[in-house]
């Protein structure tokens, strides 16, 4: 029994949907950012599986771009989390719904 494209894609899908569930369930900002990381990683895994199926390096190149984006997103997201914590003294996302103007 060899590993087909199905098994790899299934793993990527399960990881992605776990991240999606976490993003919908959790209200803590840090956990939401972690869930986004899980989803990005799963998308990258799907690229690698597809690239491996065709035997070409394009999938790996795309993974490098996803990595770049994830790093930027985490840096900006964590800075936002620090600002949010200073303002509201809480990690609860529901307390930050008073934005106006």
């Amino acid at each position, binding site marked *: 029994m*060899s*590993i*087909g494209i*199905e*098994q*790899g*894609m*299934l*793993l990527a*899908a*399960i*990881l992605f*949907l*776990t*991240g999606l*569930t*976490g993003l*919908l*369930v*959790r*209200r*803590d900002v*840090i*956990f939401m*950012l*972690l869930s986004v*990381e*899980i989803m990005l*990683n799963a998308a990258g*895994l799907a690229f*690698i599986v597809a690239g*491996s*199926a065709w*035997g070409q*390096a*394009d*999938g*790996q*190149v795309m*993974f*490098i*771009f996803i*990595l*770049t*984006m*994830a*790093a*930027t*997103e*985490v*840096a*900006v997201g*964590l*800075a936002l*989390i*620090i*600002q949010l914590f200073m303002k509201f003294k*809480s*990690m*609860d996302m529901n307390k930050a719904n008073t934005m106006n103007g």
Partner: protein
Amino acid sequence: MNILFYITSAFAVFATLKVITNKIAIHALLYLIASLLSVAVVLFILGAPFIAALEVIIYAGAIMVLFVFVIMMLNLGKETIQDESNMLSKKMFIGPSVISLLLLAEIIYMLVHQSLVPLPMKMIAPAEVGQLLFTKYLLVVELGAFLLLSGIVGAYHLGEKEKLVHHRFLKTGKDIA
């Protein structure tokens, strides 16, 4: 190699589930690192050794350490964990889980109704990736550089403390309005 793939995949899924159900942030983070390391092993098995190394060095190494730093800096106490357990009831998992399982069922249906394509499991060397990166995708690399620069500037600007004195003649922030 195949049995290794299945064991590692199972471990990745287990660790990821522990991430989203954990109440303590730092424990969830450690589970996420374990999950990323097992995904790196999967990538290695699929024939992408360069990407597996990048996953360990950048994802598990750099990005997760950034998370650890921020969690340590915020110094979240027992109240946050208490808040989190108040918010996180079992009932909240029902709706999102149903949505996710429906999507998963659709993907499984789609994958089952295809002809089975076994992966060639051919190793793609880092040289090949680098060659493609700096010829065909050169423009995207430059856009990535823009993105990183804007990320640095944005993180520096957002992470700054609010200034108490804006200008030497305008001592308090009220004068500006």
